């Protein structure tokens, strides 16, 4: 069996499961973000009374942090009241950050667990060896009542990464390269396991990036075999007790691919789809109105450091907006401590409170008609960040910072050669 199958089998109380089978699995953590008052509405519509296990439930207020409208503020209020009435103490309010950063930081994510959240980027937590997947509000409400959910055991695709990243390229470029190859529906309903020597070199943050954007290829979940880096990350948060599953040597993957990451160059996804991927150089010179660094894909300390590396001691042109949204409070505090926030603000950045920022087109840096944005986020769908007539290019934090510096789309290797 694959490690994912072992996780599902344990959660379903079975000895064996196989791909295609529908199992009912016990859920270890169910997270609800602040887009989904619908969870509570569905819970009540199903006559839900007590949540099955309040300690296994978390609320994260990230998309509307702080609330941009009275309605959003009221939705938060209703969620706080629900959490209090149900004895749910894992409530991360508007100061906390994006759920996919906040949950691991808070020590809620561990190998071998079944994690569902009302967010498609829940695939991120495969970086820690969890079975993690996004669900809708009503599915989540069912979990609140039953503590279980049905899943189709997925086929697993293995992507082996070899080589090492070249200067100016990042984990983001690697996942864009995969999107270029496999397209937005490449792995619908399937699981992706990332492996190989390059993967072993990747930091936790880099692993989270490639697991996060696996959903842009349609993947249901991701998996990375936990190693000493994961163990150290968890130990630093006091977590030492968890199952470590391993894939059996005779497991047959549905597909196996190998990618040499040293062949990857800085890439971007051009409007309006995540798989419209090209070398940054092909779009070099395109004038931008906004550059955005943040989100559950590109707002970690490592991402802000990359941006600061490009922008330190320099200034972005007037008329260009550089919006920086730290992924979490912890990231924000560390970035203050390392001085990178100061460097970015001095270069002309506007720093917002931790959370999703303008990623989902609600507030804090929306785009007007005809505007062009280059973003370290994950999605460039029409209207994603405001006007459907705006154009969004998705790229690495290095490329975004280099483009902010020049006011036009720029291969980061150019400005890295000049300066740092």
């Amino acid at each position, binding site marked *: 069996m694959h490690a994912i199958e072992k996780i599902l089998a344990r959660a379903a109380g079975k000895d064996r499961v196989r791909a295609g089978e*529908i199992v009912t699995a016990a859920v270890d953590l169910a997270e609800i973000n602040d887009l*989904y008052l619908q969870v509570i509405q569905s819970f009540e519509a199903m*006559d839900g009374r007590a949540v099955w296990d309040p300690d296994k439930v978390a609320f994260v207020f990230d998309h509307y942090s702080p609330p941009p409208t009275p309605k959003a503020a009221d939705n938060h209020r209703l969620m706080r009241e629900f959490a209090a009435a149900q004895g749910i103490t894992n409530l991360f309010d508007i100061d906390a950050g994006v759920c996919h950063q906040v949950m691991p930081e808070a020590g809620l994510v561990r190998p071998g667990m079944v994690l569902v959240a009302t967010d498609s980027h829940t695939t991120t937590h495969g970086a820690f060896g969890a079975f993690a997947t996004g669900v809708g509000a009503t599915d989540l409400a069912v979990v609140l009542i039953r503590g279980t959910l049905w899943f189709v055991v997925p086929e697993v695709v293995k992507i082996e990464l070899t080589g090492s990243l070249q200067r100016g390229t990042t984990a983001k470029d690697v996942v864009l390269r995969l999107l270029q190859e496999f397209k937005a529906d490449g792995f619908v309903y399937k699981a992706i396991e990332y492996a190989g020597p390059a993967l072993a070199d990747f930091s936790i943050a880099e692993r989270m990036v490639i697991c996060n954007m696996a959903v842009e290829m349609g993947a249901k979940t991701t998996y990375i075999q936990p190693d000493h880096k994961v163990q150290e990350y968890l130990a630093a948060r006091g977590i030492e007790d968890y199952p470590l599953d391993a894939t059996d040597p005779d497991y047959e993957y549905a597909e196996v691919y190998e990618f040499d990451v040293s062949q990857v160059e800085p890439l971007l996804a051009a409007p309006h789809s995540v798989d419209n991927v090209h070398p940054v150089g092909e779009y070099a010179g395109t004038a931008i109105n906004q550059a955005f660094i943040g989100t559950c894909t590109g707002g970690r300390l490592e991402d802000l450091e990359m941006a600061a590396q490009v922008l330190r001691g320099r200034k972005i042109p007037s008329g260009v907006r550089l919006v920086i949204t730290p992924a979490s409070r912890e990231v924000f505090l560390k970035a203050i401590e390392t001085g990178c926030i100061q460097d970015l603000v001095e270069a002309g950045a506007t720093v917002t409170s931790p959370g999703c920022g303008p990623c989902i*087109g609600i507030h804090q840096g929306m785009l007007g008609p005809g505007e062009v944005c280059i973003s370290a986020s994950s999605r460039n769908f029409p209207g994603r960040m405001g006007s459907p007539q705006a154009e969004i290019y998705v790229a690495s934090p290095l490329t975004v910072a280099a483009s902010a510096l020049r006011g036009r789309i720029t291969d980061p290797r150019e400005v890295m050669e000049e300066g740092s």
Partner: protein
Amino acid sequence: MGKLQGRAFIFKDNVDTDQIYPGRYLELTDPKAIAAHAMEGADPTFAERMRPGDIIVAGRNFGCGSSREHAVIALKEAGVGAVLALSFGRIFYRNAINLGLPAIRLAAEPGVAEGDLLTIDLEEGTITLANGEVLTFAPFPPEIRKIIQGGGVIPLVKSEQGG
């Protein structure tokens, strides 16, 4: 699970949930208010032009992207009878089943034009096209059929809760 009949509205590949239901309306919680924005990001005239029972016919990966259940609520409340597509984003697909919106996977391009009248028999697994041609689709697995027959997961779980 009976018969459905409606006019086809054609959409392309990879229609994501931001197009089905733009992010700026996510704070809405009243289904009627949500329905007013159905498909707005892909076709701003859709909500006005469609009539209850009409059918969305899309390409590959319909409903990819975010997990927002609003996308399904918008279509269902607007009265969309069914969504036919070559494949679906998996969270959209689950949400559709949970809320009782038939999401039907087609094996091949159906050869349907905008406005064609389609008749879907969920029991038989058939789609009758305007020209009389009949397409078939694989029946839902029993676990999922149970949810659809129960009118979605909400009445099903509710009935388990007892008085």
